[in-house]
Structure formats: C-alpha cells, structure tokens
C-alpha cells in the first residue's frame, strides 16, 4: 500500500485546494495529472539556472544542456527498456502517433493496404490514420470486440480475413473502458503477418511497468503530462531500424547534417532527425524528474494502488442499480459509468458542484457509443496520490445522488 498521505504532500495542487467551495477531489487523471514539486523545480531550474539551447553552441551552458537532454533520454530508455537512440522527443502522444503516421505509414503504405484499429481508440489514434488513408488509398478497418474488449482472437481473425493489414495501432490500455490488451501476443501475430504494431501507451505507461523490448511492439507512444510530468512533452519509442527507415515529419534546424541549394538534404540519424527546431528543454528536464519520481515509488506499487482503489470503488457502488458501470472488471484506474436516466454531462456538473473533478462525454473516443450503446459516459480515473477518502467522497455522492440542478441552486 502506498503512503498516500506522504505522497500528497509532494503535490502543491493537493495542498488544501478547493473547487466550488469544497475540498478538491481530483479524479480526472486519465486526462492529465498533477505535478510534484520536484518536477516543477526541475522545469524552473532550466529557466533560472540553465537557460541555453541544445546542440547549438560552443560554450558550457550549451554543453550542460546537451547533457541534460541526453540524461532524460537515458532515463526514459531505462524506464521503458529501449535503447537510448530509440527515444524520440515529441510534444506528446498525439504528435508521436502523427509522426508514425506521416513518417512511416505515408512512406510505406499503398492503395489496398489496411490499417487495423478499434472503435474504442482515442481521436489521436484514429484521425492521423484517416488522413494517411486519404493520401495513400489505404483503408482503416476495425478489430471485432468481445464485450468491449480487444482480444488476441479478434486480431487473429482480422489477419485471417485480410492479408493486406500492414499496421495495427491500438491503445495498450483504453482511455474509456480501461482494458489492457494482450500487447505482446498481438505483436507476435502482427510480425507473423509482416505487419507492425503501434502501441498507444498514453494510459498504460504512467500506470504499469511497460517493457518495450519485451512487448516487442514496433512503436510505443506516451505523454509526460499523464505521468506527473509537464505538458508539451512526450515521446515516440521506435525500433531503431524502423526509425532509420522512416521519413522525417518536421524538418528544420537540428535534424540535418547538411543541405544544398539543389534541394539535397542529409538528415541526421534517429532520433535527432525527427527533432527539428528547439526542443521543449524545460519540459525535458521536468520529464526526467517525473520519471525519477515514479521510479522512486515504483510502477508496480502504483499499478497495485490503482487496482485497490478500483476494487474499493466497485465494492462501494455494487448493489446500487441506478449506477451503471461499464467496465467492472478493468482494474486499471479508469471507471466509466452513468447514473440511470441522467445525462453524463449533467452528472459531471453535479459532481463539480461537490468539488469532484471527473470527465464526461466520449473522452475523445467518438466511436465509443457503438460499443456501450450510450452517447456519453462519466469517467473517474485515479493515480498514485488518489486516496481512499477521495473514493469515499466520490461514491457517497453517486449513491446519495441529488438532483442534477442542485449544481445550480444549492451553492
């Protein structure tokens, strides 16, 4: 069990913050997470003590910054078990997925090729592929689901039916229902069929030990801000030979060896060839501090904590027939539900009036209504600083209900 009381002291946002005049109960961690003081200090350190560009100077400040960037790259590589040169900095998960789409798929896909997705995917793992299909004549197809879950059998069936699948791109843990997919087994099936696996790790990497080499995915993407790190920084982890083979997406300074008036450009090797322009250096320093913070607590402990809170919430909510839970067996820190006959946004507004932050809607997975048969859900999501008391307040407010208009008239 985590020492949540001690952990909470590390987070300025948890220091007696209120919302709507009530103690803040923050349960929207699948959207973004709070930052510990060490991350904020690391980011400030860039501006207060280290301000210089990287790769662009002959003086000490610049050299020191190069070392900081390398240190973060190494920290990420160790954290995710990849090689250092397999870590590409991006602005976040969305840019990382776009980089695979425009750098890899646009180069290697042709008319008639298929991209296998699920209808539960976040917009960032759907819309780049739609665009690639427009540009190449490839086609998106969807894996069949079993009770909202992506299964190995479903992926195998897709490959049996269609020999032209070249890319499979799936969330390692879904952002609405929170189910983990059998990524390693799916990677094996992809490779047996000469396809690659892109794993969207936005909801998995922050919450569970993720081993890139062991999973054998070809690409893995995630954002720092969902794991106690800064916004505006994330990464693409890619097998080095694929990174070398694929095209750059952004071009500009810092990504080329040389270029000539003829138009010839010699790009640097991966990962530098993808990192045109000045990097988010303050973000990179914060990213390293976030990884250090999480490693110090332990990813296995964080995952166990999420599971305990999930089970605790389910045990409290069970037996209340008006509370419809869509993913009782997910156990990954994401609980999606509705109150019978109450619109999701109205419920979220009522919870806001009690100081409870949750997300309502489709959570950017706009095809999810086809899975659960509801236009929207309310999503509660936990993290390492979420306390049992947070879950108590949340559950009590769901169970005791209250009229949704209380949010406007009882404050």
């Amino acid at each position, binding site marked *: 069990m985590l020492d949540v009381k001690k952990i909470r002291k590390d987070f300025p946002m948890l220091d007696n913050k209120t919302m*709507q005049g009530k103690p803040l109960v923050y349960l929207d961690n699948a959207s973004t997470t709070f930052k510990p003081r060490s991350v904020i200090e690391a980011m400030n350190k860039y501006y207060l003590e280290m301000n210089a560009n990287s790769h662009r100077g002959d003086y000490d400040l610049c050299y020191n910054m190069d070392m900081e960037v390398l240190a973060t790259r190494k920290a990420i590589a160790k954290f995710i078990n990849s090689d250092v040169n397999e870590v590409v900095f991006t602005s976040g998960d969305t840019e990382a997925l776009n980089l695979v789409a425009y750098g890899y798929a646009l180069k290697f896909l042709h008319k008639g090729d298929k991209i296998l997705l699920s209808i539960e995917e976040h917009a960032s793992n759907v819309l780049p592929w739609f665009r690639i299909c427009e540009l190449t004549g490839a086609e998106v197809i969807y894996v069949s689901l079993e009770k909202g879950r992506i299964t190995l059998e479903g992926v195998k069936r897709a490959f049996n039916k269609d020999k032209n699948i070249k890319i499979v791109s799936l969330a390692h843990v879904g952002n609405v229902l929170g189910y983990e997919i059998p990524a390693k087994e799916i990677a094996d099936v992809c490779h047996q069929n000469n396809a690659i696996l892109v794993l969207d790790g936005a909801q998995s990497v922050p919450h569970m030990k993720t081993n890139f080499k062991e999973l054998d995915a070809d690409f893995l993407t995630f954002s720092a801000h969902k794991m106690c790190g800064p916004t505006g920084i994330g990464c693409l982890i890619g097998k080095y030979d694929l990174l070398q083979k694929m095209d750059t997406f952004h071009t500009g300074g810092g990504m080329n060896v040389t270029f000539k008036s003829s138009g010839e450009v010699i790009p640097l090797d991966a990962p530098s060839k993808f990192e045109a322009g000045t990097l988010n250096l303050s973000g990179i320093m914060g990213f390293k501090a976030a990884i250090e913070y999480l490693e110090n607590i332990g990813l296995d402990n964080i995952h166990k904590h999420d599971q305990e809170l999930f089970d605790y919430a389910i045990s409290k909510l069970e037996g209340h027939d008006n509370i419809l839970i869509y993913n009782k067996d997910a156990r990954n820190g994401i609980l999606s539900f509705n109150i019978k006959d109450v*619109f*999701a*946004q*109205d419920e979220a*507004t009522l919870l*806001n*009036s009690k100081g409870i932050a949750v997300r*309502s*809607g*489709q959570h950017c997975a706009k095809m999810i209504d086809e899975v659960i048969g509801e*236009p*929207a859900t309310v999503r509660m999501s936990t993290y390492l600083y979420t306390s049992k008391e947070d879950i108590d307040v949340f559950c009590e407010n769901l169970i005791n209900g209250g*009229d*949704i*208009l209380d*949010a*406007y*008239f009882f*404050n």
Partner: protein
Amino acid sequence: MPISLTNEMMRSIIMDHSSNPSNKRTPSSNDYESIHMHSDNCIDDLNIYLKIENNLVVDACFDGIACTISLSSTDIMCDLIKGKSKEKALYMIEQYNHMMHEEPFDDEVLDEAIVFINTSKQAARIRCATIGWNAAENILKGKK
C-alpha cells in the same frame, strides 16, 4: 416574468422543458433557416430552425442531442423568440448573454429564461445554456 421566482419554481421550469421540450421537432417544410451547432466540451449537437416572414420570427424549433441545460434553454429560447421581430429577438438574446456572464441585464425581456440566472455557478455549462441562443443569433444576423 417576476424575478421573484423561487428556486423550486425555477428548477421545475428547467426540468419541464428538458423532459418535455415542446419545440423539439424537425420542421416538415423547407421554408426554415437552419444552423447546426455542436459543443467541444459537451455532447450538444443541435440543429436550430427559424421560420422568418416579413422580419418576424413566426416559428422556431430544434432537433438533435443535448444535455439538460442545453435542451431546456434551447426550448425556452424557441418559446420566447416566436412572434418577435428580428430586432426584438436580437435584443433579448443580447440580454440573455449579459445574464450568463453576470453583467447587468434587462430582465423585462427574458421572461422564463431567467431560470438560467445561476448558470455561471457552473461555468463549464455556459456554453450549453447559450448554444441554442447563439444559433438563433447567427441565423438572425445572417451568419452561417
């Protein structure tokens, strides 16, 4: 409409309009001007239809998906806008927007729409309470 409505009365007016929105229908004729509105922070996805004859709004209705606040506020907007000249309708919408943002407003013209006076307490829902009203404003101003 007296401003002395009790909270209970205001709540029941909102609930009446959201559970039985009398103006939620798709027009059967094609002489309506319409506009589609959707929200990026709520599921609201609405078509608003106004029938305008000789500078007068003679009918107003809507269809689509909406949360309680957008459903009831749009339904009330449709009730109130019917029979108004373009100018009077625009003045009413302007006053409603002032109320939404806690600015001084002319309560005389807002009638039943006064029930949304507390929306700013839930700032994330202001967009819901104004979506139908903004749609009507856009139609009246010829913005599509």
